[in-house]
Structure formats: C-alpha cells, structure tokens
C-alpha cells in the first residue's frame, strides 16, 4: 500500500495484524492488516456482510479473534476486556443505537464519564462532600464541552428512550465523547438519518477530529460514499473478510476491484442522498 509505506512507528495508534475471525465454519475476517494513524479519520467500507462490524467488535474487545494481534499504542491488547479497552481510551458508537433508554440524556453522558469518576459505594451513598463536588466538576465538563458541541441543550433532562432516532444517535456520540477517548469507533453514524441530520453529524465528526480540544482519531464505518470520500484521510475496503485496498479516497475510487465489489458500475456518487 502506497499510503502505509511512509509510516513512522509512533504515528500508529492502532494496528491489526493478520486478524482472523471465524464463526463456526464461516470466515468473517481472513487475515486483516490495518494501521490507524493518530489524528486521522480512517473509514472502513464494504458491502453488507463484509465483516466491518465484526472488525469493530474485535477492536473493541466484544469478540476475540482466533488468530492475529491487536496493538494499541504498540501494546498488545488481545487479552484486554472491553471495559479495560475503554479505560485505555477506545470509545465507540453502535450501528443500532445502544443508548440506555431509561436514563436521561444527561445521565447517559454522565455515564460516559464513568472511568474518570472516583466515588465508590461509601462516598456515593453519603454523597455530600467528595461525590457532590466530583459530580459538579464533571457536570461542568459535560455541559461546556459535550452538550454545547452537540447542540442537545434542549433535551438534556429527557429520557433517551423517548427521543427520535437522530437525537439518540447524537446522544450516543456524546456518551462516547464523554469518555475523552483517543480512538473513536463510529459504526454507521449516519445510517437512518435524514439529510439535515447527516450534515450535522458529519460536522460533529469533523469537529471532534480537528478541533484542538478533541483531536480524536476516528474509525468510520459508513455506507454513504459521499460523506466517506469527503471526510476520510484513508479508506479501507473490505469484501467478505478480505481486504481489497487501504488507501486515500482517490486511490480507492479508481481501484477496479472496489468498483466491481462494492461501488458498482454506476457513478460513485450514486449512493449519495
């Protein structure tokens, strides 16, 4: 891959090395190699069933690959459980929103702060003093950094389960951001949104990636080719467990196999809404 050649070692935030994943005899991933550099938006595209979400689940720790290694900051994290990976700074959103429906928007985002909070059972049940102060500090962070960024001030006290889908997606992004992650996995953040919401969400992704405050490295799994090609620094194309190409959007668009496997004969932008 032309793009990977000029890579310095400590630029790499996450590396998948020869990852294999089988479900019974079905091969979901067959030897995937992927390097994600600090500060980039790296998209993963591919037809339905290509193994994109499986790959995200592996990065995230929900699945353990049968073969291969995952390195995060040059550290092997094969054995880390999902919550330990979250503590390392890997956050994610899900394809189908997996918010905590019974909690308010604010509580959902507060929950994202979990790894940064310290109070336990005893200080929590007394509340006055340490816990109260901690809650106020983190509330300030949530209000000023996240709720303000995502423009969800008006719904902060509403239970998430009662919100429309687009807002739920936004809350889910907010919850992932509250973790203060270094690597953010966005699993189809635009699926099922209308044009205006897509534009908003794309803007948020750019903000999170480029703003000095955040500088979060993003892995973007998406079907909306227009957005993928516009936002990404690199695009990784997956077809039924096999990598086709990992390169810049320009390289990907002109790759004959990609056109055959995924984009089709028609215009690349045909899928754009």
């Amino acid at each position: 891959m032309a793009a990977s050649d000029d890579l310095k070692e400590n630029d790499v935030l996450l590396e998948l090395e020869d990852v294999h994943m089988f479900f019974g005899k079905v091969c979901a991933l067959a030897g995937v190699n992927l390097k994600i550099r600090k500060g980039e938006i790296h998209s993963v595209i591919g037809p339905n069933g290509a193994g994109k979400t499986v790959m995200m689940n592996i990065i995230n720790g929900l699945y353990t690959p049968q073969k291969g290694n995952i390195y995060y900051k040059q550290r092997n994290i094969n054995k880390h459980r999902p919550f330990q990976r979250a503590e390392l700074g890997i956050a994610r959103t899900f394809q189908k929103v997996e918010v905590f429906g019974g909690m308010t928007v604010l509580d959902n985002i507060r929950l994202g702060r979990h790894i940064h909070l310290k109070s336990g059972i005893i200080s929590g049940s007394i509340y006055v003093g340490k816990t109260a102060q901690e809650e106020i500090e983190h509330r300030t962070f949530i209000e000023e950094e996240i709720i303000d960024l995502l423009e969800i001030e008006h719904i902060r006290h509403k239970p998430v389960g009662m919100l429309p889908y687009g807002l739920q997606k936004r809350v889910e992004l907010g919850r992932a951001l509250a973790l203060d992650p270094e690597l953010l996995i966005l699993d189809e953040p635009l699926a099922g949104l209308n044009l205006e919401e897509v534009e908003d969400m794309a803007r948020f992704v750019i903000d999170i990636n480029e703003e000095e405050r955040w500088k979060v490295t993003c892995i973007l799994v998406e079907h909306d080719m227009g957005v993928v090609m516009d936002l990404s620094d690199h695009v990784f194309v997956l077809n039924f467990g096999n990598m086709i190409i990992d390169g810049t959007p320009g390289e990907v668009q002109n790759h004959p196999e990609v056109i055959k496997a995924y984009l089709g004969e028609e215009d690349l932008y045909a899928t754009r809404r």
Partner: protein
Amino acid sequence: MSTTWLPCGTYHQNYVHDHAWWQTKFIKAKMILLLIILFVIIPLVADSYGLSILNLVGYTILGAIGVQLLIGFCGQITLGHAAFIAVGAYTSTLLILEFPWPKILMDWGLAYPISILIAAIVSGAWSVLFGLPCARVKGFYLILTTMAAQFITVDFIITGYVSQIGGRGQAFSLPPGTIKIGPWVIDSDLKVYFVMLVLVIVCVIGVLNLIRSRVGRAWIAIRDNDISAEVMGINVIKYKLLAFYVAGFIGGVAGAFWISNLAAISPEHFPWFWSLWLVGVILIGGVGSIHGTIFGSVFMVVVMEMLQLAVIPLADIYPKLLVDFLFIKEAVFGLAICVFMIFEPNGLAYRWWQMKNYFNLWPFSY
C-alpha cells in the same frame, strides 16, 4: 420521570441547585412537614396496633429496597431475598445471645447497633456468594440460582444447623431486655417504630444517593444495556456483584431490625413466599423507583390488614374464611399483581407522578 416541575419564573442558576433533591422552598417545606408527621404526630396519635402495622410497613420497605435495587436498578431478577434477611436476623440474634460482649459495650447499649452493622456486612457477603452466578447467567436462569440461595440458606443451613446452636430447638427466643440501643430498651411498638424510622430513612437516603452517583448509574446502565455498559468502561461483573452486596447489606439491616419486634425468631419467619412477596411489592409500587418501593410496601401491608379486618366479622357467617385466611391472602396478593400488571404496569409510583403533575400544572393539562 424524575424531572421536577419548577414554578414559573424559577430557574436554576448553578449546577448545585440543579443537583439538589429539594429544589424549591415549597418542596422543602413539604418534606419537613412529612418529617414532623412521621416523628411527632404519628407517635402522638397512633395506638399500638397502628404502630405495629407501620413497623411491618417499615420492615417491608427495608426488605424491598434490596429487591428494588437488584431488579429495578440492576436488572438482576432475584427470588431469594428472604434468605439474606434471614442471614441478617440470625447473625444479629446470635451475636446478641452468644457473643461475649465486653462489659463496657453492654453498659453503653451498643451490642445491638453493632450487631446490626455486622449482620448487614455478613449478609452482604452471603448475597455476593449467591450472586456469583450472575457473571454467567441472566434472566430466568438467575431466578433459579437466587431461589437456590433461599432453599440452601433457610431450609438447609439455618433450619438444619444454625437453629441447633445452643440446643434451644427450632426457635431462638429473645428474652425481654436483650435488645437495647444506648439507654433505651426496645420493648414497645413505639420504640421499634423510631428504630424503624431511622433505619428506613438512612437506607432510603443511602440508596437514593447511590442511584444518582457513579455506582448507581453503572447499575442502571447494566439494566438497560449490558453490552454497551461494558463498552463504556464498566466492569459489568464487578458492578453486578456490588449490587448484590448492597442489596444483601440492606436485607441484613432489615433482618437485624425485625428481631427487635419479635420475641423469638425461627426459620418460618423467612419463607420463600416472603421473597416472592417482596418482588410483588416492587411490581405494585413501580419497578425502578425508590418511592415506588415505599408506596408498594404501604399498599400491600394496608390491603392485607384491611382484608383481615373484613374477614373477621364475616367469619361469623362463614367460618371457613378464617380457616382459609392464608389462601385468601395469597389469592389477593396474586390478584393485586395481575391487576397492576394489566392496568398500571408502571406501578403506584407512576400514578403518584401523574397526580403530582396534574396538581403542579393545574389548571392546564400540559
């Protein structure tokens, strides 16, 4: 459902205000009035019968909070909570009767308060032991493992072995004057009532605080969606066990409290039906709400007492009612759960919320 409606023109100026429990002066006044009613007016006006019913309500609340925590907040269905109440009661009783307390602690009347604390800790540890399967199983399977807790603890260990300690046979009698807090001997319904009030208020406040801080949010997250909870950095197994611990702890407090109201305890005080009863209480009160637990406890105890009052005069006409009273009680319990599940699945807490909103928003409907 916990939003407080602020009166027109009142706004939160800072986060401290927004995080407060009692957000307006009016609510504060109402709560202080409630405390005055509980601590001053009820003891003045209630007779011994009324107080004993209130004590039963308090006991039910203490027991049901633990169940509410597990089912309503952490999503771990339990049908063996009476076991942990029994562990608390027996630990406390054994400590009082058998433990060689230093004289100074006896003189200061600290034996019973300390035994409540130890009973709670032991009962929490016992609860964690039977909560361990929750690392592997969910839902219906967890119900079975918690039922195992009930049968192993009460029917096997307590009946078979613990009750034999001291050679008294099946029941441990608590001689008058053994239950003492400070200078007060807990020997009347009124004194039990005050102990109950303090314990219920402390436990309710503790649990409410937990629910609005880090640990409680983690529990609610596990209830709503355990996979994404784990992805957000929550050690799911640890927090599930923590929920079992806190539930067992409060169960232990309930058991240790209840011996102050009894002359003797025996395994029959903690049947499996009592575990089921506590689940019924939270279903009727409202799953996932602490004041629902309180409403449910009041409702169930009061309904059962009314039933008793109704049956006694009718027994003159139809004596079999009295003989079969236990069956009637259980039938009414089942019926109440059915009726609530069909007509108000969110429980009494939701009705309360609706009523409050109606009056807060009056004369408009929104």
